[in-house]
């Protein structure tokens, strides 16, 4: 079981949380203007890395707030917890 450090509540068991999948996926700003290909990218295609993933977690049975986590999918080690809206800490501004 993962021990996840909620930025608002501190370290808690994984059973209090729900994983919300890959982070930093922005909804197209003008939905009417994008192609089907771009919709497929937004809705379905994912990086699914074997290594460090940036993903969203939701503290369902706690503060009920969302935050982001950097985690290694090979070892489950949590490398960094950061707030929603903050840039991905292991990459420069894009």
């Amino acid at each position, binding site marked *: 079981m993962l021990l996840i450090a909620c930025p608002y509540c501190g370290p808690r068991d994984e059973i209090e949380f729900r994983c919300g*999948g890959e982070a930093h996926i922005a909804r197209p700003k003008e939905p009417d203007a994008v192609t089907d*290909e771009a919709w497929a*990218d937004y809705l379905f*295609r*994912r990086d699914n890395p074997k290594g460090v993933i940036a993903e969203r977690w939701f503290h369902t049975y706690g503060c009920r707030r969302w935050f982001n986590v950097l985690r290694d999918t090979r070892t489950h080690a949590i490398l960094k917890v950061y707030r929603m809206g903050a840039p991905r800490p292991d990459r420069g501004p894009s």
Partner: protein
Amino acid sequence: MTRYSIVSLARNALSHHEHWPRLWRSPEPKPAYDAVIIGAGGHGLATAYYLAKNHGVTSVAVLEKGWLGGGNTGRNTTIVRSNYLWDESAAIYEHSLKLWEGLSQELNYNVMLSQRGVLNLAHNLHDVREGKRRVYANQLNGVDAEWLTPDQVKAFCPILNTAPDARHPVLGSTLQRRAGVARHDAVAWGYARAADARGVDLIQNCEVTGFDIKSGRVEGVVTTRGTIKTSKIGCVVAGHSSVLAGLAGFRLPIQSHPLQAMVSEPIKPVLDCVVMSAAVHVYVSQSDKGELVLGAGIDGYNSYAQRGSFHVIEAQMGALKELFPIFSRLKMMRSWGGIVDVCPDASPIIGKTPIEGLYVNCGWGTGGFKAIPGSGFAFAHTIAKNEPHALNAPFSLDRFVSGALVDEHGAAAVAH
């Protein structure tokens, strides 16, 4: 290939069974093949077999990073059924089940298919409606399916707790009598032996590290044992599909998750069917050795670690005890995790990719074992003809652009 029969058994008995030939060769990779399959799991081996048998393509290599059948093929709960909701799914899963029914004879290898019947329990009104809908859809598609009332469920599987005040009341169940279980290793070994006999090279301990792609077309595959030239590559690597797609330069709508399973200590025969409950994430059968074989739902996060979190097992065991009070003191012997390739619509992807000559067969998620023969059959056709078979045409990669999804979350019966 030595044909297995009562005669060969008697002959080998005379030499104390010490001179049975190996099931397949262990050849060195050749510099070039007509087609290369990546991944020697059930689906990859079946693909190689049907390429050789149905399409006469015998210059085929199957490359395996680890050992043959050592991934999800050797880690699953071995359930075989075809009671899926939509026409597209019913067609390919039912074709697969029909191939299963003749597989031991065809491969001359006992895959131990046991058509003992699979129950999919309903615990609430929604389950009942969905279950009946699926039964009627199955019947319209020629797939055997029945709806059982609680009393009929009790008669079919007496150790189930069907009391009205149970934590998970049983309000009915679907039943597919032709469904059941098979021996997971035997399927891989049987296909491997039969493919090898037709000239397919099975190359283990050979990891693919890259593709040789020129002007959008594959020309070869780079491995830890050298570069192999080929114009057709079938990628059948389940949980690692996104990694290989990344090497080829495109993204898949796939997420890799751990799926856990476990076995109990062996007990006397007590459960002669397969019981699945999607609502509480339990599926259970009893093996010929007497162990209960149990599966849980997937873990919610992405992982390549081949293990999951303990609370998933705890939830599954809790529900198992409520459904089967008789198992309350049973000890579990071991648990393990496999990495499953989950698709947004719980249906597979079998077909072409943006790279000419590179084909994918993935996205089977939590339920690929049952589809091994049908998947290999359709994928071999796709690779040989460079166009999908009618069975797998609906499961193309571009359905995620067109929006023509095949939503099988209900029939997949494992929590996603």
